[in-house]
């Protein structure tokens, strides 16, 4: 399936761009991360600290091990610091 991947904040900076379209059969966000991390040194750096990785699937916060389904967009970012 084709998925739009979005990166925010420090992850966006490390990857080097805010979004990219990928083809993947990943079954969880964590599987997807493994595929994305292999794309470049920047990607690897972005995903180096999995404990500080947050994920939204179709704009809903989602656990890295939840079933991925057929998402339109998946976003990766560091812990949020709003308010």
């Amino acid at each position, binding site marked *: 399936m084709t998925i739009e991947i979005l990166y*925010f904040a420090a992850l966006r900076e490390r990857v080097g761009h805010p979004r990219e379209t990928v083809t993947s059969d990943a079954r969880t966000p964590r599987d997807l991360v493994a595929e994305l991390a292999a794309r470049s040194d920047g990607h690897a750096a972005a995903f180096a600290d999995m404990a500080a990785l947050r994920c939204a699937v179709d704009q809903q916060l989602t656990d890295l091990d939840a079933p991925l389904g057929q998402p339109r967009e998946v976003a990766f970012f560091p812990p*949020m610091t*709003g308010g």
Partner: protein
Amino acid sequence: MSARVQTAPFDLATELAGFGAGAGAVVTFTGLVRDDTGSLAALEIEHYPGMTERALTDYGQAAAARFGLCDWRIVHRHGRIATGQPIMMVATAARHRRAAFEAADYLMDWLKSRAPFWKREIGQDGAARWVAAKTDDEDSLARW
């Protein structure tokens, strides 16, 4: 009963005009850019367009249901915000004070840890540094 994300400043008085009709208690929280070191020029706030509005509305509606609010409002800015300026506000209106206080407190905990905003500190020398999430923000959220 609304949430807004914007770059422009907001005015508390304007936000509260007509807010909470029939309520006995209105609580507001305003977060401002604080300079602890004397070297901060501004914050730069990134967000996730689309998800942000949805998340703020979800949290507002959840607070309204849980605490029986008469009214609620969330305004959160993004982009560059200078030291001393307001970043965001939450207002809650309820019949009694306990519900208004708790709902505002609850919303702040959600916004701090679950709304897709990321702050970067911009020093007076131009250097930028991402703000790290605080463990006690997670602890605070776990209270609810």
